[in-house]
């Protein structure tokens, strides 16, 4: 089913060999202080990458640059070989969407907006678009609320609506900035399960989260940020005590226990790796 949603139309197909995300010496400066410094990184297509790091590490800043909403102060950004705003098939679910919840649109209308980019000017959504939208809604468990005005959703339902929109968009690269924040555990499971299905379709995902356990369990790669790139690699490579100290200071340690490596906060955390 997801095949249809995420099958990029030929016009937007990219050579298999091009790198999904290619950053060279990327820096972003805000009024004097650097939010990102000298980041170089290549992400292969089809990987699911968890972007982790403390608050203020620059995760959202990185996503904004990738989405073409923020111009970097220095360095080069390529997404499937294109400059950020040139890339068609990128879907972004920001950390906090500043939308007006009294807007007279239904959940379905919002998800349908994800199709606008594909339709082009002067064309109206067809049966195919409607099916893709319904599938995306079903995928995040909002099929029953499709006709509801968006203001009547709970915090978690709102988050899922945006994910459905990103799915309907049919992107090659999904940027999800803490999409699980505010979701109940069954909903979190639903979202994470979708990620598994995406792997088969060569859809790349950057997924910001503070849940290191989840990151270690369910992702192909971890990108550990703290203004600079601390580490990028498989969960085993990245979650070392050394790296964690570099990212989180002395407040986070990796401890080997009998059932795996446990990532601990200062006074007893609860995340597994």
């Amino acid at each position, binding site marked *: 089913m997801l095949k249809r949603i995420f099958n990029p139309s030929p016009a937007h197909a990219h050579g298999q060999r091009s790198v999904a995300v290619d950053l060279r010496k990327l820096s972003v400066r805000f009024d004097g202080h650097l939010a990102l410094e000298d980041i170089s990184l290549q992400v292969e297509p089809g990987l699911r990458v968890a972007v982790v790091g403390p608050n203020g590490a620059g995760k959202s800043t990185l996503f904004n640059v990738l*989405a*073409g*909403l923020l111009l970097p102060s220095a360095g080069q950004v390529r997404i499937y070989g294109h400059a950020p*705003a*040139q*890339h*068609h098939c*990128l*879907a*972004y679910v*920001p950390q906090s*969407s*500043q*939308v*007006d919840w009294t*807007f*007279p*649109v*239904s959940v379905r*209308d*919002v998800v*349908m*907006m*994800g199709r*606008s*980019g594909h*339709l082009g*000017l*002067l064309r*109206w*959504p067809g049966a195919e678009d409607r099916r893709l939208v319904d599938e995306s809604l079903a995928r995040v468990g909002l099929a029953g609320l499709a006709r509801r*005005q968006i203001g009547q959703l709970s915090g978690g339902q709102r988050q899922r609506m945006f994910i459905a*929109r990103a799915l309907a*968009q049919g992107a090659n690269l999904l940027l999800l900035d803490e999409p699980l924040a505010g979701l109940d555990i069954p909903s979190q499971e639903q979202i994470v399960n979708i990620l598994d299905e995406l792997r088969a379709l060569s859809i790349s995902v950057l997924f910001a989260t503070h849940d290191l356990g989840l990151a270690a369990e369910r992702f192909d790669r971890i990108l550990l940020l703290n203004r600079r790139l601390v580490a990028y690699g498989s969960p085993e490579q990245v979650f070392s005590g050394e790296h964690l100290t570099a990212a989180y200071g002395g407040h986070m340690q990796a401890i080997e226990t009998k059932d795996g490596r446990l990532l601990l906060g200062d006074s007893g955390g609860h995340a597994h790796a």
Partner: protein
Amino acid sequence: MLDWLLEPLAFDFMQRGLLAATLVGVICAVVGCYIVLRGMAFLGDALAHTILPGMALGYLVSGGQRGALFWWALAAAVVSSLGIGALSRDGRLKQDTAIGIVFAGMFALGVALISTARSYAVDLSHFLFGNILGITNQDIGLTFSVGVLVLLLVWAFYKEFLVLAFDVQLATTLRLPARLLEILLSLLTAVAIVASLQTVGVALVAAMLVTPAATAMLLTKSLPRMMLLAALIAAGSGFLGLYISFYFNVASGAAIVLTCTLIFVLVWLLRRPGVRNAAA
């Protein structure tokens, strides 16, 4: 009753006025829906006022040909739209502030231009309050063309304007030409305003943009239905207002706006919400 309805129609100027009021109502209401949804109710009034320097320059340059004035007014509105866009783009100013600054600056420029060239009579009060009774067949033709153009563009860019109004970030990632669309929408607003100048005037055109759309918003939670309702309300107000002006001797622009406001108040009172919010 039938007499009551037919008597005003015996006058040519009433026939023209009713036609113009209906046309303008529909144009403003449809464009107004986007304005209300984007939380830019101010934009209508502001753009309307920024037209003044254009009109003043137009008088000076073209010697007051009516046809030319339309284009001067439009040019001023476009310049203002671009100015507002430039000011609010980098995020240092909120959009309402940007609008406020441009609006006041342009209007002041208009007043200054008029005050320096004193030997001609700019018909300021007509400009402010409209002159629906003095409308010509050409004016109606122009309004009609403008109306068709505006409605066509709204229809053509419906989904793009929707995304733009709802979520600008999304528009950018969808590679919609956000900036262009924004300018287009401002342009549509400007065109709607210039087309309304004859009917309700600068001072009251904001009402035609905001009030019907807001009334419709209270009645439905779907955008297409909101547009339809707003158009109906606006056209109805134009019609009814002109009759009121005829029978109760109230200035016509004001009568139209007051009718519109009255409909809003009625809807607002009758559709009280189920939920009560405590102090907000």
